[in-house]
């Protein structure tokens, strides 16, 4: 046979193999041994070679347990109580530990959320990847290192040699996730499970990781299971979607079909959130022309001019915020967007006096706060003109204090209202954040994450502030709670409260702000009407940000190659 014929035969064989199932779940039930209840019921799906199946659901829906069952690493209290799992012809449920060790890494593997914790903190990351290659492939140390360096380059880490010798704590979240992916593909597995791999990463980094997975799928013929609570993440990359709720599949089908014609109410809620509050709101609308700039006559509440903040350590000085100048008007709602470390939280902290600017001037409601003494700050804060809502509501509420006392505290501190007035004020704000009065006697630990965040908003509101600063208020919340908080924010806007909404995600900000300020490496690189930022982003970073935002419609979101080009341009520019 000539080489050509052999080639052709191999190609035919490859085409035939394409679409061949590599993993099949049939009616899988997972039981909690203690309660005796099945927490996952009747899950069935087939993963074909080179394909991507997405599993969407909120926390507790059973998506992670399903993945763990497939990997044979269910937590001790859980067991598969029904159904079959077929992994490349192996009956997963009857595998011995030895067989598992052989299959994991070579046939199936996984990467998870919080990548840093999945690496040994006291070992260099390169050595950890090399260890797997050495033990499973039986190659020499030198060969294992060589292969590891190739893998690190393969996941687009800029300096493989450097990363090889670093410890996990020396790497950023995005780099760690890429290291973890490199480790996962080190033995050429057939199936890769990506469980919430983009959660808690910046939007631009999220897109990078997803692009990388899509790229690896194409180049290595990987089959992927992508698990996320965010439908938009799954929509980017998956051929087929399963929507899980309370341990059951409520909707399934080809991704495009599910997005276009969702049947189940829960899926509709997930998609609806994007249309109401995501970038889709702007992208779906007909192309707009830039509006002529009208003179804004509303009084100015916050004026910042040339504000610089730097963090000094014994050996270096880092400028976290450079020359920030902006105004926030009465009743205005402004979004502050930027990646981790871009200076957006520093800006907010400067406004409430938690950091002192090294240069520049800030005035709030006519008062120059830059030179405030500690005592002046105390008085100023007591008046409650400006209030702050933190990202993590659990840690910003005192766990030992009831909700009622938490809400009453700022007012008691002011000492200007009678008890009944305070009670009325609290009831009013509680209604505004749509919470029942019977929560007042509870402790923060007894509330859900969404309820806690609404309490945090209510607490900020009791002093009737003129400005509310919200630092990533919805990043830790699921879809339903996110919608609720955003709706509350919109009703506050209607009542004339000024908002400053800080987030790394343009999507969550777009629905409640009229203007957006983009921060990049400490500088405000763009300020424009939200509609303009989404449809006509000016700065390179803003273009990448808009192009990276997960959307449930593909319109407007740029493709992988354009994103990569933007990243390279941005890198070259800095």
């Amino acid at each position, binding site marked *: 046979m000539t080489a050509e014929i052999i080639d052709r035969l191999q190609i035919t064989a490859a085409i035939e193999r394409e679409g061949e199932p590599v993993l099949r779940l049939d009616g899988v039930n997972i039981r909690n041994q203690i309660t005796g209840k099945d927490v996952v019921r009747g899950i069935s799906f087939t993963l074909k070679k080179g394909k991507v199946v997405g599993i969407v659901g909120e926390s507790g829906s059973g998506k992670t347990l399903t993945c763990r069952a497939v990997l044979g690493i269910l937590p001790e209290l859980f067991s598969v109580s029904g159904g079959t799992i077929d992994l490349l012809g192996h009956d997963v449920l009857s595998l011995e530990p030895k067989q598992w060790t052989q299959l994991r890494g070579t046939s199936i593997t996984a990467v998870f959320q919080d990548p840093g914790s999945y690496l040994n903190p006291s070992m260099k990351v390169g050595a950890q990847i090399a260890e797997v290659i050495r033990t499973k492939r039986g190659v020499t140390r030198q060969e294992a290192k060589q292969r590891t360096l190739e893998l690190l380059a393969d996941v687009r880490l800029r300096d493989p040699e450097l990363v090889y010798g670093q410890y996990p704590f020396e790497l950023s979240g995005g780099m760690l996730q890429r290291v973890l992916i490199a480790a996962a593909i080190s033995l050429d597995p057939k199936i890769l499970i990506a469980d919430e791999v983009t959660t808690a990463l910046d939007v631009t980094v999220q897109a990078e990781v997803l692009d990388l997975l899509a790229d690896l799928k194409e180049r290595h013929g990987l089959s992927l299971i992508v698990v996320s609570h965010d439908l938009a993440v799954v929509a980017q990359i998956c051929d087929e979607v399963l929507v899980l709720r309370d341990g059951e599949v409520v909707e399934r089908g080809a991704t495009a079909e599910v997005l276009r014609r969702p049947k189940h109410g829960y899926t509709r809620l997930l998609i609806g959130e994007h249309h109401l509050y995501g970038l889709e709101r702007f992208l779906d609308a007909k192309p707009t022309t830039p509006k002529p700039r009208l003179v804004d006559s509303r009084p100015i509440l916050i004026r910042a001019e040339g504000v610089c903040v730097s963090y000094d*350590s014994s050996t270096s000085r880092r400028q976290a915020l450079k020359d920030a100048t902006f105004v926030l008007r009465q009743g205005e709602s402004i979004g502050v967007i930027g990646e981790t470390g871009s200076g957006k939280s520093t800006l907010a902290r400067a406004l409430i006096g938690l950091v002192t600017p090294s240069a520049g001037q800030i005035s709030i409601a006519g008062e120059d706060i830059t030179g405030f003494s500690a005592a002046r700050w105390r008085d100023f804060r007591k008046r409650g003109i400006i209030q702050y809502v933190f990202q993590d509501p659990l840690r910003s509420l005192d766990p030992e204090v009831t909700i009622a006392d938490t809400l009453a505290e700022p007012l008691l501190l002011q000492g200007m209202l009678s008890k009944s007035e305070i009670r009325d004020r609290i009831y009013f704000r509680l209604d505004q954040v749509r919470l029942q009065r019977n929560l007042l006697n509870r402790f923060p630990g007894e509330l859900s994450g969404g309820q806690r965040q609404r309490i945090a908003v209510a607490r900020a509101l009791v002093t009737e502030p003129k400005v509310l600063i919200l630092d990533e208020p919805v990043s830790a919340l699921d879809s339903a709670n996110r919608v609720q908080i955003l709706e509350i924010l919109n009703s506050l806007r209607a009542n004339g409260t000024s908002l400053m909404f800080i987030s790394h995600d343009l999507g969550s900000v777009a629905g409640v702000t009229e203007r957006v300020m983009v921060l990049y490496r400490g500088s405000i690189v763009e300020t424009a009407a939200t509609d303009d930022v989404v449809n006509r982003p000016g700065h390179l970073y803003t273009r990448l940000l808009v192009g990276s935002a997960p959307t449930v419609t593909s319109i407007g979101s740029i493709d992988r190659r354009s994103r990569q080009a933007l990243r390279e341009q941005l890198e070259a520019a800095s």
Partner: protein
Amino acid sequence: MASIHTERETLAYGGASAGLSSRWAVARSTLALAFRSIIVFVTVFFLATLLTFALQGLSGLSPAHLQLSESATPEAIAALEHEWGLDLPLWQQYLNWFGGIVQGDLGRSWYNGADISLLLTSRAAISLSIAGLALLIGVTLGAVLGITAAKFQTTWIDRAITTFTTFVSVLPPFVVGIGLVAIFAVWFNWFPSAGYVPLDRGGLGPWLSHIWLPSLALSMEAVADIARQLRVGLIQASRENYVTGALVRGLSSERIFWGHVLRNGSGPALTMLGMKFPNLIGGAVVTEAVFGLAGYGRFAADSASRGDVPAVQGVLVLAIVLVVAFNLLVNLLLVRLSPASARGI
């Protein structure tokens, strides 16, 4: 450490300076750590010797109490104090004494004028033999028990070991010592019940047979503590995410345990060992009494009751050096175990 920290930040920023070698940063941090450790050692040593020296003033004792009779004339006392250099200004006395210590000279005994360094060396050899062997037993047996308990977590083996360590940890060393003497020396007659033979005189066998029982008695508390700390540390480490990570990458549970969990889970046990070391030295004193050994504890007790201040000071200086040096060693080991911890200090 500042240097690593800033570099990490530039990396997280993806800045142009990401090409900086991290190996250099690690080398620098190790050097800085060694330097800081030495500073700590010197400071602690200086303060502790200062306190030790102050004993002399606080006790109000002088060699005259030991060497002269009740009828001593003031002139005779002054002459004696002059002979011992006690009429010099205090700071000068301290400097003289400190200068001696640095060169290994602990001064002379008020009681018989003998060289304290010499007296102490032969006594300390006994105590340190016992404490050293006890440490060795403690670490080895403690590690074996702790690892076994963690590996067979929640089985009867684990429970048996936990029962044993709990039982042993509540027994004071002198009770264990008396028990061991009763069983192994009196009943079986395998080991001598008292006395000591130096290594250079009798060789390894007699030396070991004499210190074996006291060491064992002394080590029991360390065995129990190390076993329990190690068990908890290993169980906690085995629940970390990186264990799951290594598992799905295809490493076997055995390899993960011995290669990753053991190293990361032994930190607490090691920390505790550093804190237990003074107990071991202190415990040697009690054990010496039970086994009739003329060790360093007896020397300290005798000197104190005689009011022989330089001798007591000598004992304290030796203890300070041992404890500080051992803790330094433990800290350096801890940093080796967990590189991230070098960041914070």
